[in-house]
């Protein structure tokens, strides 16, 4: 059994509940249960990825032109931030198994900092989209065309003061069909928004775990809670691994 170290010598941790044969079966059921939840998450995001694939197939040229509005440098930075956080969670599980709560807390702390960093960078990206009227709501304007649920019309620049300001604010040339642009940005906000919501939930869960570890809560007897939360956080990283090339690095 090379590389297999006995981890739990704590009598509390070895407590086997009555419905299990032994501690191994008990631990396995935790992991399988968590994976069952993650599979539902794959289905949840999968529907959005499929919708993205259909519209990208249909309007690939427009998607390529509109994706230039996104900042691939900031997206890449966010990818790296999430990779670091994922690595730190893996290290936290490693230290939890070795029963080193201090190092475990440091790793979880770095993860939490990365999660906040990710949201911070995301806020910069989102706010510039809002500023350029690229959020798909009633004030959506792309390439001098106002696109709403009622249809598309040429933006009257002199009509509203906002129109003049808008023309000044837009730095990048806006190419492609404004309707498809709205579709692309709707998908962008829906998918990265849902992912961002998962990051927020992750922050709450990791924060709670850190407090419980720091307070030596009797509910945390072994590495299992850290591993379960780690699985969730790796999944969040996994979604971003696909979102990044699909939204920020579209080939022509």
């Amino acid at each position: 059994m090379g590389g297999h170290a006995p981890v739990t010598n704590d009598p509390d941790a070895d407590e086997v509940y009555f419905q299990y044969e032994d501690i191994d079966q008990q631990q396995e059921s935790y992991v399988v249960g968590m994976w069952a939840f993650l599979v539902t998450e794959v289905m949840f995001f999968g529907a959005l990825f499929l919708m993205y694939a259909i519209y990208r197939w249909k309007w690939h040229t427009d998607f390529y032109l509109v994706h230039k509005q996104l900042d691939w440098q900031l997206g890449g930075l966010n990818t790296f931030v999430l990779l670091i956080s994922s690595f730190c969670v893996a290290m936290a599980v490693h230290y939890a198994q070795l029963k080193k709560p201090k190092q475990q807390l440091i790793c979880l702390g770095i993860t939490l900092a990365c999660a906040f960093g990710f949201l911070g960078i995301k806020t910069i990206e989102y706010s510039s989209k809002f500023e350029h009227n690229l959020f798909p709501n009633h004030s959506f304007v792309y390439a001098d065309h106002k696109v709403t649920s009622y249809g598309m019309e040429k933006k009257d620049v002199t009509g509203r003061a906002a129109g003049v300001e808008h023309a000044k604010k837009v730095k990048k040339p806006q190419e492609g069909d404004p309707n498809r642009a709205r579709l692309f940005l709707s998908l962008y906000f829906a998918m990265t928004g849902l992912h961002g919501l998962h990051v927020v939930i992750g922050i709450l869960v990791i924060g709670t775990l850190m407090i419980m570890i720091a307070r030596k809560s009797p509910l945390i007897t072994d590495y299992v809670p850290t591993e379960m939360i780690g699985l969730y956080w790796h999944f969040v990283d996994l979604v971003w691994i696909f979102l990044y090339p699909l939204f920020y690095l579209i080939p022509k």
Partner: protein
Amino acid sequence: MAHESHSSGHSGGHAHVIPQSKLIATMGALTGLMLLTIFAAQVPYWFPAFAWLKDQHLLMNLIAIGIAFWKAWLVVSIFMGVKFATKLTRLFAIGGFVWFTLMFITMIDYFTRPWEPVKGWEAGNSSALPRNVARPE
């Protein structure tokens, strides 16, 4: 299988502790692949010698998605520990991603038939809403 599960008949709650060096190596590989995917996407614009890649849509898409799956595999197998997990865990993990891939069979419909316009949803009058909605003046 070399890395058989921790539930191998031993009692006492053994778990596979993934060595630190392996985690660091995985992190390095993930960072390298991230840089590779960015490089692959930008290389036709940075180097005029590779400008011909701009027209290789299928190749560029396959590279991007291939690298994404490679990174996903590293995260799932090492960071999430599926490589060292029990067979039942592997079944759940792999099942989820197999389902994800199967879902894209839907694309066959779009690959093999023309896009059929739905009355009221035609291009030019473009909107996702029916046309009989009262429009504000």
